[in-house]
């Protein structure tokens, strides 16, 4: 079914960014436009999701050129779910940015670039063309370079150099992979590729191409051994930026892996084992890294790496249950990780520091906000019945069903270390008495009411989504179940795109 509504979210963010460029150096209209536009985009995303959930896969032939010759946008349940989550996260971050981002950064174009970034994310989730996916990845990373360096502090530039070098390397691998794929198949449309690639006789070259994609997306989603750029760069930009990076940017890599390795390259024994080994190592390195960090945002960055491993393992097992778990984890992870970095930003506003040794006493001073944050932390650690618990059950079941005991062990160890780290974080930052109360710069206390709300409301929105995911898991499981069936049985997708 042809429908322009698919790319409405992309267009909304594009037009907001353009309008904001028109309001250059005027901070108030930019803030209003950003929040209003993100809200409109959320409405479109909800409409798209309900339409896809209640009906069929929607497609749109851009410029009216039919697939496989033109570029096609496809909204299946995986894409539209991710678009919906992106819209929620983007709304939260844009509200938080209204106060959490300094005036200087807004003067130099923070908001337009932020909306170009979200536009790129939406486009990457919706496109059905592998080269167009690359183009949207470029939109994302170019915007993220600007967001990362905006402000130009030394630590920021240092982080940005690592980030940029690794991401350009990843794009090069991805592009080379696309080149090889086009060379052996003669098509760029993903549905068309899904029909052509299994018929290619020279399997060795198909495997090599698949490895190129694995390395490219692996760097982007921070899989072992190419994860080190993430913890060394995510703690440098402002927290609102880190939130959108931590919540969504690495997940685009995961999405691309899911898409490419379920649709185009059905993983053989070798790729599956490779994915599993990588996932175990990713979980372990992320978890042990998180154990020793004292900077709040570095700690969260290592937790991102650790939990990326959970999802990659789900793909590596390649059974219905495991993929269901991985998709559920992805849904849970976007909400929680975005929120974690917003919380880090809030703590910075309250204490002027990110070092756990210097922090403390937040529970005594802000009991209600601390309880709100506790919900998020419990969801992350996976305390039943909150949102982190359910996907791990499915992942564990998947692991036992396929006798991947090593992965099951790593999953359990990773979860325990996450719990331990979160407990340490809670006791250090919230329960411990503040080490030297005189040096605290509490900017939060002096803020006027509406600015306080702008910092708290986004955390509430995301915490509410996390609670909904946890307490109403039945619906999310239903969604994840349908997504995993769509991923394992790609015939409806191919039929929808190619019309045959």
């Amino acid at each position, binding site marked *: 079914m042809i429908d*322009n509504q698919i790319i409405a979210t992309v*267009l909304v963010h594009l037009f907001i960014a*353009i309008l904001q460029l028109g309001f250059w150096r005027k901070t108030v209209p930019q803030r209003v436009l950003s929040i209003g536009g993100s809200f409109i985009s959320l409405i479109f995303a909800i409409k798209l999701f309900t339409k896809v959930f209640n009906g069929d896969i929607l497609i*749109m032939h851009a410029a009216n050129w039919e697939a496989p010759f033109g570029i096609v946008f496809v909204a299946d349940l995986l894409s539209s779910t991710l678009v919906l989550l992106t819209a929620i996260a983007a709304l939260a971050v844009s509200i938080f940015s209204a106060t959490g981002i300094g005036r200087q950064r807004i003067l130099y174009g923070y908001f337009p670039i932020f909306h170009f970034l979200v536009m790129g994310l939406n486009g990457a989730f919706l496109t059905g063309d592998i080269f167009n996916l690359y183009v949207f990845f470029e939109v994302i990373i170019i915007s993220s370079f600007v967001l990362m360096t905006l402000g130009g502090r030394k630590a920021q530039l240092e982080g940005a150099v690592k980030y940029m070098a690794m991401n350009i390397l990843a794009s090069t691998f991805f592009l080379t992979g696309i080149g090889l794929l086009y060379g052996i198949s003669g098509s760029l449309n993903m549905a068309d590729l899904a029909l052509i690639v299994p018929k290619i006789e020279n399997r060795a070259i198909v495997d090599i191409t698949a490895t190129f994609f694995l390395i490219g997306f692996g760097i982007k989603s921070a899989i072992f051994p190419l994860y080190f750029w993430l913890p060394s760069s995510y703690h440098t930009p402002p927290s609102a930026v880190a939130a959108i990076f931590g919540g969504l940017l690495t997940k685009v890599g995961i999405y691309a892996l899911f898409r490419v390795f379920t649709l185009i390259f059905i993983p053989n024994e070798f790729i599956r084992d490779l994915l599993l080994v990588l996932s175990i190592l990713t979980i372990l390195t992320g978890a042990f890294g998180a154990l020793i960090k004292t900077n709040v945002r570095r700690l969260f960055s290592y937790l991102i790496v650790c939990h990326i491993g959970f999802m990659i393992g789900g793909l590596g097992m390649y059974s219905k249950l495991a993929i269901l778990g991985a998709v559920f984890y992805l849904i849970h992870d976007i909400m929680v990780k975005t929120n974690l970095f917003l919380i880090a930003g809030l703590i910075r506003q309250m204490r002027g520091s990110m070092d756990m040794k210097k922090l403390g006493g937040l529970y005594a001073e802000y009991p209600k906000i601390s309880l709100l944050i506790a919900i998020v932390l419990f969801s992350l650690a996976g305390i039943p019945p909150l949102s982190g618990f359910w996907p791990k059950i499915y992942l564990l079941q998947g692991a036992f069903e396929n006798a991947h005991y090593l992965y099951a062990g790593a999953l359990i160890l990773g979860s325990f270390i996450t719990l331990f780290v979160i407990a340490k974080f809670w006791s250090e930052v919230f329960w411990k008495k503040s080490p030297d109360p005189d040096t605290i710069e509490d900017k939060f206390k002096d803020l006027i009411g509406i600015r306080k709300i702008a910092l708290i409301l986004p955390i509430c929105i995301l915490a509410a989504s996390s609670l909904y995911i946890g307490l109403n898991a039945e619906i999310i499981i239903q969604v994840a179940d349908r997504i995993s069936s769509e991923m394992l049985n790609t015939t409806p997708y191919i039929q929808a795109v190619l019309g045959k």
Partner: protein
Amino acid sequence: MKSTILQTASRYLLPILLLFSFFLLLRGHYFPGGGFVGGLVASIAFVLHSFAHGTNETMKILRYKPLSLIPIGLGISAFSMFMPAIFGLPVMTGLWLEHPIPVIGMIGTALLFDIGIYLVVIGVVLTILFTISLSSD
């Protein structure tokens, strides 16, 4: 750089180069040329003028800040992409007038898109160059 020859020449070259840039813009859909090249030629015309007369003089004949061309250009391009949706077609579909217009030729959304690119390129190039030259003065 004060040179009478350059100053006099740039005064005549500015309109000629601008006309040439329009020519490149208009023929771009079927022949070599287009919004990007046209925009570069147009900005070179202004750069040449600023070499001869100084950046402040060039800013005076431009009247508006080149930065404001960026959102206008982007807006025109984005609108040309969105326009087919108003007629119920998939976005980015090329819409064309039925009859060619003398001198210019066929007019469609592609030309509108190119005009947008033309303005963005002028805006970006002049913003970068003027910022550098003003901060180095």
